[in-house]
């Protein structure tokens, strides 16, 4: 029984970690899919979400539901703001300029947070209603279950949005051929901004779930999280939505497995090792298409 419980809880841990990476990786992959930009500031959106939670829960002492809603909304607004201020003026600039800007935005957010909130970790009061629930004699982490379910629901909603709605089709059209999309009457600029909004909202959901599990906020917390989600997106095949989820699960499980066998100091290294192997064996990632050059 103990063995079963251990395995179940480790699998759940893997799914939980993978889910959080998935929510962040989806934002990377969507933005890359549409404007071929590796948005290095994406991980820092999580950090912003964590500070919003800290302000509302620890400083203002408001209801956790309000805190969660405002965190997601705040992350969405930040994502849109970053696009409008930093990336939109560079729509016709070379890709490298936009990439460098993304790195600049990331540093700006991290150092800005450090300036405003200080370098030390801010503890966010616990806002999960219960810690464990009993399922068939097993005691399972409530936060982990919620994380997995919310991620699954978010992925389904996102897939529906991209595949079936008018805006989603416009996103796919823009990602394939911006000029042709313009000729269809699609406002390309707004479509790109919308993509940032969706990606950032998912990062906001990720921030809420992450802080639920690890209740603190630091200025650089988005860095490693963002990097691993980026690895997940590349593993799955950047630009692919199912790829981002599968890649994230692989990264999550790899980390949990390495920790479970007592090698937890290697948990970061194994993620990057995985990346190196995939890049050698299958450079386009698991779900990656060999993309034809855009003209």
């Amino acid at each position, binding site marked *: 029984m103990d063995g079963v419980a251990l395995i179940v809880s480790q699998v759940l841990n893997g799914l939980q970690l993978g889910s959080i990476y998935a929510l962040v990786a989806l934002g990377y992959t969507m933005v890359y899919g549409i404007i071929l930009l590796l948005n290095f500031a994406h991980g820092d959106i999580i950090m912003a979400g964590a500070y919003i939670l800290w302000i509302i829960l620890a400083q203002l002492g408001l209801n956790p539901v309000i805190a969660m809603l405002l965190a997601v909304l705040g992350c969405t607004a930040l994502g849109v703001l970053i696009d409008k201020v930093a990336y939109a003026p560079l729509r016709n600039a070379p890709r490298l300029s936009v990439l460098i800007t993304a790195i600049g935005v990331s540093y700006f957010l991290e150092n800005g947070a450090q300036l405003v909130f200080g370098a030390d970790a801010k503890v966010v009061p616990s806002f999960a209603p219960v810690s464990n629930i009993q399922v068939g004699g097993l005691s399972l982490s409530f936060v982990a279950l919620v994380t997995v379910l919310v991620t699954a629901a978010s992925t389904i909603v996102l897939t529906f949005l991209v595949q079936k709605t008018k805006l989603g089709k416009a996103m*796919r059209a823009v990602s394939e051929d911006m000029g042709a999309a313009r000729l269809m009457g699609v406002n*390309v600029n707004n479509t790109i901004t919308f993509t940032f909004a969706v990606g950032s909202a998912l990062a906001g959901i990720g921030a809420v779930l992450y802080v639920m599990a690890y209740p603190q906020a630091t200025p650089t917390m988005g860095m490693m999280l963002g990097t691993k989600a980026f690895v997940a997106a590349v593993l799955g095949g950047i630009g692919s939505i199912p790829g981002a989820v599968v890649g994230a699960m692989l990264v999550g499980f790899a980390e949990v497995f390495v920790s479970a066998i007592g090698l937890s100091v290697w948990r970061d290294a194994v993620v990057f090792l995985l990346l190196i192997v995939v890049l050698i064996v299958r450079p386009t990632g698991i779900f990656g298409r060999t993309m034809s050059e855009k003209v």
Partner: protein
Amino acid sequence: MAALLSVRDLHVSYGAIKAVRGISFDINEGEIVTLIGANGAGKSTTLNTVAGLIKPESGSVELEGTSLVGVPAHKVLQRGLALCPEGRRVFTQMTVAENLEMGGYTRSDAENRETLERVYAHFPRLKERRGQIAGTLSGGEQQMLAMGRALMSRPRLLMLDEPSMGLAPILVQEIFEIVKQLNASGTTILLVEQNANMALSVADRAYVLEIGTIKKTGTGADLLVDDDVRKAYLGG
């Protein structure tokens, strides 16, 4: 009668390269007008400028007296000008039906259902293949899809850029038959072609472009028998 589209003294440059040097032409409601000329004469540049993809250096483009200069491409479409671009540029990873849906992006679902029936009537093959991914269609089918997609916006003026490019002669015939049909059912057409023979035989009027300027103009029938045009574009 005032022209539907009127272009006056249009100049367009790509950096230091002057692609269009002061061309003027008119298109009246109900006509098929063609711009013919060799590669690099400025035909596609002219269409892309009218469609709002490129900003002209100077000159005017007016749709029924309203200027289109500086209007972004996605708004030009809403004014009633659709461009079916060179090289078709269908969305290869979307289905035929989704491509057509994108064509009707600015229209309501009810309008699109109605237009779709008309498009399928002109292009029965698209109806057969509506669930197929566009990238797997043949060149001729992709051309039909690109034309059908442009029609979905219910344009007042349909601009076709090299619809015969890369197609087998039998398909070229078929495409031009459809161009005539579309015109007969009320769509005004501006056609850009290197296949001057076909273009002149369907056009009411034609303009001959050479290195960014208009060299000659006349009815399609007249230019088809014009000595200079025959020598330069129709192989004697």
